[in-house]
């Protein structure tokens, strides 16, 4: 029973990693860059919802919606100001810029809200679900359900809509996509918007599951989501999902049965092991990039 409940806890955390990993992987697949500020977007989302709830007394649904919109816009603005001018620059310059954006977001949050973590009252109205002796928190149920739903919607969006087919074309060959009449800049912008919107949802689910928010909440979480994306095969959407869930389960079980202090080391150890055996990740394809 203990094992099953730890396993479900892993699914819960893993779902949050998966939602963040989706943003990493989509941006990498389409813009071919690692947006290391992506983790901090979950923090912005969580704080936005927190402010809407506590200062403006909004209904939870409206607050979450605003959080998604704010993060989507922020994602597009960051892309436009920080990354777009560097589209032909070296990957190293882009990486350093992304780290700069990450610190910028953390510092602004710290300036406005202080560096202390504040408690966050869960907005999930569902109580714990009991199956025999097993008790699953409402937060875990909702987090997993939302993640599965998003995964389905995202897959449909990419495979069934015109904007989705534009994304696939841009991810493969930007110049050829332009020749088809696809506005590559707008497609990249849309990708950042979607990824950041998903990060906002992840931020709220994180806050509800852990019960607190802080300026640095996106830092380690973001790194782990990045590990999840690489584990699953960066650029692959199902890969991000599998990588996230797997990471959550490994982390949760190692915390419960091996050592709380070693759990992060184990997570990164697994990453190294997978990359040695399969350099492109679980579902990743090794493909040659075109110019």
């Amino acid at each position: 029973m203990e094992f099953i409940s730890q396993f479900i806890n892993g699914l819960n955390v893993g779902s949050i990693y998966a939602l963040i990993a989706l943003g990493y992987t989509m941006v990498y697949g389409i813009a071919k860059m690692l947006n290391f500020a992506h983790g901090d977007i979950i923090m912005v989302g969580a704080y936005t919802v927190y402010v809407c709830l506590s200062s403006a007394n909004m209904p939870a649904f409206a607050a979450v919606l605003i959080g998604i919109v704010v993060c989507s816009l922020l994602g597009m603005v960051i892309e436009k100001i920080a990354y777009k001018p560097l589209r032909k620059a070296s990957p190293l310059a882009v990486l350093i810029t992304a780290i700069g954006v990450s610190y910028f977001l953390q510092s602004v949050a710290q300036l406005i809200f202080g560096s202390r973590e504040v408690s966050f009252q869960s907005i999930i109205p569902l109580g714990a679900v009991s199956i025999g002796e097993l008790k699953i928190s409402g937060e875990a149920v909702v987090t997993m359900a939302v993640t599965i739903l998003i995964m389905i919607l995202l897959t449909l969006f990419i495979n069934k809509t015109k904007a989705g087919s534009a994304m696939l074309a841009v991810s493969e060959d930007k110049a050829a996509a332009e020749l088809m009449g696809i506005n590559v800049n707008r497609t990249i912008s849309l990708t950042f918007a979607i990824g950041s919107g998903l990060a906002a949802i992840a931020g709220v689910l994180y806050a509800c599951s852990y019960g607190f928010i802080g300026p640095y909440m996106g830092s380690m979480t973001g790194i782990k989501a990045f590990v999840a994306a690489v584990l699953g095969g960066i650029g692959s959407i199902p890969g991000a999902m599998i990588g996230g869930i797997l990471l959550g389960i490994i982390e949760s079980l190692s915390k419960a049965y091996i050592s709380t202090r070693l759990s992060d080391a184990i997570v990164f150890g697994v990453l190294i092991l997978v990359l040695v055996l399969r350099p492109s990740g679980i579902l990743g394809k090794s493909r040659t990039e075109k110019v």
Partner: protein
Amino acid sequence: MAMLTVKDLKVNYGMIQAIKGVSFEVEEGEVIALIGANGAGKTTILHTVTGLLKAVSGEITFDGHNLLKTPAHKIVSLGMAHVPEGRRIFQELSVYDNLMLGAYTRKDKAGIAETLETVYTRFPRLQERKKQIAGTLSGGEQQMLAMGRALMSKPRIILMDEPSMGLSPLFVSEIFDIIEKISKSGTTVLLVEQNAKKALSIADRAYVLETGSIVMSGKASELMNDPSVKKAYLGEA
């Protein structure tokens, strides 16, 4: 006025001048061949026409539109399609998805379905393989897909960059037959080729490009008999 006019075009790669003041014209309904050795600047010219590269100076006018001020993604809806060098099909997508991306800017569903039928009629292999992942097609089939994808936009002019490159002789003949048919159906063709013999045999007029400048131009039939062209490009003494 010509359909496409290029005037005194100059294009650089960094400090290196790749196109040194090129002018040419394409009239509606013509097949124009642009021939020249590897590295002469043929691809650079086509990329500049469709907005993938920026010019240093010059003019490119298509149907009254200033193409040097038109972003690449807006060119296709003006009626100009570009079959790029190396085909550049979307390797991981199906044949059908590639063709539909060719019709990306079109909104008339019935018209798209109709064009798809004509493309399938022209390239029966594409219909047979419509669900196949494009990257698994043979080189000749990939070239057909690239051409079919361009035709899906129902262009009035089609730019083709070395369609015969790397293909077996049998496929080369097939591809040139198809280019002739595309031209007969009313589409203007600007054909870039290293295979000068084949290109001149189907072109109305031709331009000869050498290291970024046009050194000769005229009727294809005349160029074919020109001693210097024969020597340099047709492998004849």
